[in-house]
């Protein structure tokens, strides 16, 4: 039963008596709670970095710039994202598949969660006691303590078990609903976890078979190029693991919020499958400027990298199409009249809408980075950092804010008040402003040559390096704005969780409906073995020869170093 009342902006805020079953509610809440705590810590670390790099503060000896940088990267890029994403996916899988998780999925979800939390704590501990100042990419032969690597391994393996929970739930639903097309949300969750498990298998191989034995002193030397290659096999897909849950929200949830329809049930599925195919066999675009890999393979992976433009264009078209139809249904006229009819006053829409706009710019920067030759002008400069702060930290995180503002009250069974909605919009504006300042300036100063991942330095007062410093101040201002937005978000999350008025009829968990005239998706889209097989095949084409080459012609290897 859904009853609708006029709500924020022009959007409808329906209430419903759907609520998660207690065990599901708890499982999802624990994911979100831990993720937000980690977000808080990670952003604080980021703030201090921006201030130190601008030369505005001096950090205590016990806590160095690179230690903070490691914490920032590990906490935000690896821990926050993974745990939030899994929590969100579980919520949608439960909601769209009979409103509840099957018992086996719950058990797997908890095992995965506990492993991820323990792993995160171990890795963070190693960073704090200064035994792992290796940044979140942990490039050998920088050597962290075994605690750090074991922590990361637990985090990754835990996420696989969570993934198994999603597969189990999906498999059970399909068995009970023979011949029906699966809910779009659940389909996408499965696709994301397949992508994630395939890619992270290889970073796990790096950590478990190369780094842990070497860190324990069981083997003397490590093959550096191989370890970097295994890392980046995973590293680019990681980016899509962050992005795709945001796409889920844009594709599946937002149409409901704007009062539109999902235009097609088949194309979004195809889009996600293409992302599985083209986000893995492409890691060399992060290694374009390093030796030991033949040019041909680098170029081939550049071509495969650019293929992600295809699903990206499909996404852009179908989102704009959904918005246009929704606007026209509300009586919009003319070519662009629908633009005015979108519910900008609704934080559930506003934050991700800003995210989409920023993402257009972010995506363009990505094309520069992956362009075989052009990369040399910006590789390892702050342009790169700017790029993923525009894509991950702006687009993805803003979308996660937009999700949280309704998902928390659904879970806490409290009211999403108009005041909280307004705060949500203000919070998104401050965050977006901070991120545009920070990442936009990083792009500019990166083009001027400022290196990424570097503590304050004037490079012997060289004029070029001195020219970068004013930009660092702007970045620090961005960092400060982001911290304010983060504190505001923490307050909102706390309020929606514990303080807002209780209610039996909570805000609706928005799930878009598919356009009536859309065709049923062809069966092949749901035959996972085909897509997993294709994904493996593409990886073999892109990686088999260069990796065999690396192993056959490996240099003597490197001893461990801890230069901090």
């Amino acid at each position: 039963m859904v009853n609708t009342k006029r709500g924020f902006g022009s959007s409808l805020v329906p209430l419903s008596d759907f609520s998660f079953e207690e065990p599901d509610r708890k499982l999802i809440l624990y994911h979100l709670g831990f993720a937000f705590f980690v977000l808080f810590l990670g952003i604080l670390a980021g703030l201090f970095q921006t201030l130190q790099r601008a030369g505005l503060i001096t950090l205590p000896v016990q806590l160095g710039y690179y230690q903070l940088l490691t914490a920032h990267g590990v906490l935000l890029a690896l821990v926050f994202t993974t745990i939030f994403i899994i929590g969100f996916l579980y919520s949608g899988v439960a909601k769209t598949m009979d409103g509840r998780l099957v018992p086996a999925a719950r058990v797997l979800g908890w095992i995965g969660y506990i492993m991820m939390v323990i792993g995160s704590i171990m890795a963070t501990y190693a960073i704090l006691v200064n035994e792992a100042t290796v940044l979140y990419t942990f490039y050998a032969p920088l050597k962290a303590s075994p605690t750090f690597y074991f922590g990361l391994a637990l985090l990754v393996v835990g996420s696989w078990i969570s993934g198994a929970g999603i597969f189990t739930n999906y498999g059970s639903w399909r068995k009970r609903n023979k011949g029906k097309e699966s809910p779009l949300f659940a389909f996408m969750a499965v696709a994301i976890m397949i992508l994630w498990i395939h890619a992270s298998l290889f970073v796990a191989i790096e950590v478990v078979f190369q780094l842990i034995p070497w860190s324990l002193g069981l083997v003397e030397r490590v093959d550096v190029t191989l370890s970097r290659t295994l890392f980046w096999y995973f590293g680019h897909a990681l980016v899509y693991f962050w992005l795709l849950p945001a796409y889920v929200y844009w594709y599946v949830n937002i149409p409901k919020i704007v009062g539109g329809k999902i235009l097609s049930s088949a194309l979004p599925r195809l889009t996600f499958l293409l992302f599985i195919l083209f986000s893995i066999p492409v890691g060399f675009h992060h290694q374009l400027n390093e030796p030991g890999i033949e040019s041909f393979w680098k170029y081939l992976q550049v071509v495969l990298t650019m293929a992600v433009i295809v699903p990206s264009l499909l996404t852009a078209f179908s989102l704009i199409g959904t918005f246009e139809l929704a606007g026209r249904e509300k009586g919009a006229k003319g070519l662009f009249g629908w633009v005015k009819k979108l519910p900008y006053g609704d934080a559930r829409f506003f934050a991700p809408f800003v995210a989409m706009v920023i993402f257009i710019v972010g995506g363009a920067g990505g094309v520069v980075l992956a362009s075989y030759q052009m990369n040399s002008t910006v590789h390892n400069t702050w342009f790169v950092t700017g790029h993923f702060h525009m894509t991950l930290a702006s687009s993805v995180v803003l979308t996660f804010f937009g999700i949280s503002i309704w998902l928390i009250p659904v879970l806490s069974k409290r009211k999403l008040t108009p005041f909280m909605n307004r705060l949500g919009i203000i919070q998104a504006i401050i965050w977006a402003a901070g991120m545009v300042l920070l990442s936009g300036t990083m792009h500019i100063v990166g083009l001027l040559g400022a290196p990424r991942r570097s503590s304050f330095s004037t490079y012997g007062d060289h004029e070029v390096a001195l020219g970068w410093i004013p930009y660092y101040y702007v970045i620090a201002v961005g960092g400060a704005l982001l911290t304010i937005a983060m504190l505001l978000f923490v307050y909102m999350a706390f309020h929606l969780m514990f303080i807002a008025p209780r209610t039996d009829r909570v805000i609706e968990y928005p799930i878009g409906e598919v356009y009536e005239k859309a065709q049923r998706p062809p069966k092949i889209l749901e035959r996972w073995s085909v897509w997993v097989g294709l994904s493996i095949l593409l990886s073999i084409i892109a990686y088999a020869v260069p990796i065999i080459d690396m192993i056959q012609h490996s240099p003597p290897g490197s001893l461990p170093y801890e230069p901090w």
Partner: protein
Amino acid sequence: MDMPRYERIWMNIGIGSLIIFLIILGILAFGMGIHPPDSLEQTANPETIDIYPPFDQPGVYQTGPNEYEVIMTSFIFSYEPREIRVPLGAKIHFKATSKDVVHGLYVPNTNINLMLVPGHVTEYTYTFDEPGEHLFLCHEYCGTGHQLMQGRIIVYDPENTST
């Protein structure tokens, strides 16, 4: 699959320009030889490279009428040589490696952007078209002193022979 006509047009334009773009990159690479830094050459144990040629004698060597070779090692937290003098307009061939962790060799505002990986040699050729004192620095995190790793490339104008 149900794809509306406008979407089909949109996708065709998108994919078409993508293919043109990739062909241009390919021609630049394999037709004109413009590649990012590279090399499949390797070294002995990274920590002992300074007893074998060529890295036993890092420095700048003239190899042709207007051609130079820079043999360079990097290590925590410096380079050898730290100062490179070359004439304007000369072809400079860099050959560099690392003795310990991964370092970078980056000259801001140029395409000299090399990863120096222990066990491997990185090569790149570049011609400076502006005289002056160019900064080079390490752009791959290598430890607490990373931000101190730097040097200078002094590009002099041989016409203005006062030096």
